[in-house]
């Protein structure tokens, strides 16, 4: 009886541990540099949205700055299969192997890291995470923690994104849009973040304007 009770506790604990480690897990690192990670999603099309704050293992934070779905084997190009199909779903149903032949990859731009038990540092880590490090989506608590946890958000990472090529302004706006709901009121967070962007862009009005337009601030001054 006693033994049964104990094993039940252990089972519950193990399951909690597994659930915990599975919670938010969406893929793993397949290519890593200090500034950028490529992660492969465990499920086709199951990538976090552009701009989402993600975590590689326990130590590195990044934001999703690109999502690519392509053939698993780069030498074999995907061909069109839906000529006779009535719907897109029918194509996948008729070719169940597709799920195995395609992959969804995410590009993650590193925006910070933390050492065990320490605070978040919004700058690049000394080492990139190892290949196969699991990738997790973050919870609102983690988002607040990343932004410093205080009443005024810490936005030291903004220059890391501003300096990044490609659609940097879109990514930055997406990051702020995703983070805002974790704060109350979100608008205040967005204005503070906008100011940090304005400083990082040294008053480049056109770029600041492009980013601010992408933020849900249309209601104007309260």
């Amino acid at each position: 009886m006693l033994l049964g009770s104990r094993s039940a506790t252990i089972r519950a604990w193990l399951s909690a541990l597994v659930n915990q480690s599975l919670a938010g897990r969406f893929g793993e690192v397949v290519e890593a540099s200090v500034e950028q990670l490529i992660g492969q999603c465990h499920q086709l099309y199951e990538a976090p949205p552009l701009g989402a704050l993600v975590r590689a293992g326990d130590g590195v934070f990044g934001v999703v700055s690109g999502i690519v779905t392509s053939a698993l084997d780069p030498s074999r190009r995907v061909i069109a299969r839906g000529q006779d199909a009535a719907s897109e779903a029918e194509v996948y149903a008729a070719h169940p192997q597709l799920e195995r032949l395609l992959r969804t990859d995410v590009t993650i731009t590193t925006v910070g890291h933390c050492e065990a038990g320490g605070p978040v540092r919004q700058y690049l880590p000394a080492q990139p995470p190892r290949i196969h490090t699991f990738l997790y989506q973050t919870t609102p608590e983690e988002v607040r923690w990343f932004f410093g946890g205080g009443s005024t958000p810490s936005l030291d990472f903004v220059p890391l994104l501003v300096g990044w090529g490609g659609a940097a302004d879109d990514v930055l706006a997406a990051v702020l849009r995703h983070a805002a709901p974790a704060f109350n009121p979100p608008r205040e967070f967005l204005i503070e973040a906008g100011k940090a962007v304005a400083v990082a862009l040294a008053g480049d009005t056109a770029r600041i304007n492009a980013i601010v337009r992408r933020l849900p601030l249309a209601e104007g001054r309260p």
Partner: protein
Amino acid sequence: MTNGNGLVQDPTVLGVIVGGSLSQGLDVRLTGEGVVEDAKVGTFVTVLAERHKYFGIITDLSLESADGRLASSIPHAAPAMSEVLAGTGAFALAKVTPMLMTGIGEDEPQPARSLPAHFAPVHRASNDDVATIFGEEDATHIYIGSPMDMEDTRVCLNLEELVKRSNGVFGKSGSGKSFLTRILLTAIAQRGLATHLIFDMHSEYGWQTTAEGGYAAKGLRQILQSGVSVFALDPESARRRGLTPDVDVRIGLDEIEPEDIAILASTLNISEAGVNACYTLADKYGRRWISDFLALDADGMVQLAADGEHSGALGALRRKLRDLERIGFIQEQAQSGGGAVRQVLEHLTSGRHVVMEFGRYGDDQSAYVLVANLITRRIHAEYRKRTEEAEASGTTQPKPLVITIEEAHRFLSPGIAEQTIFGTIAREMRKYRVTLLVVDQRPSGIDEEVLSQVGTRITCQLDNERDVDAVLRGAPGSRELKGVLSRLESQQQALLFGHALRMPVVVRTRDYQEFAAEMSLPGWGKAPTSPADKADLFG
């Protein structure tokens, strides 16, 4: 605590130093919440650096942007851009002119000769800062007003230093210069620092007058009582106002000297030949030269012309002198006992302050210039004699005399200043213990050299740019102060700078009613000396 930009946040902090120079002033990036509209030109600020504390005033404000394209791009901006750019891409700078500095932990301010480093925080000055610079009210310091936006703080003026030089109170009509002047006159008299001789053109210093607000403002006589003697050139005007002057002044024609006429040359339109004739006449006839000249018959005039004078000039001079003779307070002979001048001197010597009321003659420029100049010339000569005698014998020097003149540009305009006694007094300064308190609304009409000798300048609002330039000419930091002076409020605000103040300051001048009430308290100020004083104070 710091804000998102890492700048210090403290309610008294206005901003941080971001650049500038000692000659052009410091650039202060305004950082505090809502500070852009609160920081005003003329605000007294301190800069706390590592080893020194600097004192200065805001002399200019500007709106800047990090991006030159801001103006063109803002019409197409997102609605929240104004909030995002406020304090980041678009910000305000204040220009602070550093005036003084003290070592940290020291009290003695010196002129600012070094600069605070970048990022030193700029604070609004505290009560203690104001007291460090301007002192606290005591036997020689008088509370004159409060710095802008610091209603509970007192700026004090060092009266002892003030009376060592000639001083000026400037401001357009209705800006409050008369009340400021009264405060100065009363305070100097109360503290026994000098004796006053006031040429009261508009009869507003001696007795009660009605202020613009409709209340009755006490005059010097009411506050200082028997310590003040009112001399009236127009006793009827005084009596109509229900007052009894101490002395009815009559000026004898035999008291007028050719120099007195020379000053009036432009006012009375007397030619140079006419002025020269005055000297000749005085040589010829002595003290009674005017009476004798006016009494000449046609033959006498012909004779004079034959002696080399220009007959046209003589005729014109006679007409002008007849105009003078017709002035109400002019009589043929001086009053008994040495005339008006002697009486003024006697009152001054006994320690009484003399207010010379002009009544209706205040509007007669030639009467005012004649009397003021005539009396002052004699008094200056007497003080000069006494000072030299005191120096020679090592006895006590006469008590300093402050002569207050209104519409000073009439005595001190370029060209005339050379000739009038007021120009001499302004230049000689304290050597003979006589100084001027110049009250004027047109300082640009005053001779540049004389104005440069004015030690402390107290300036209310001035409309005319030339007047603003004239008041500031020669003052350190005049270019920066110009912005401050041209933005004074129309009443009860004044810019003070010069000898008696360690640094320029803009004050809201103290309420005259309150001042007069305080000064009228029995036992206030110096101890009464004469039995009459005692009777006045203690009944």
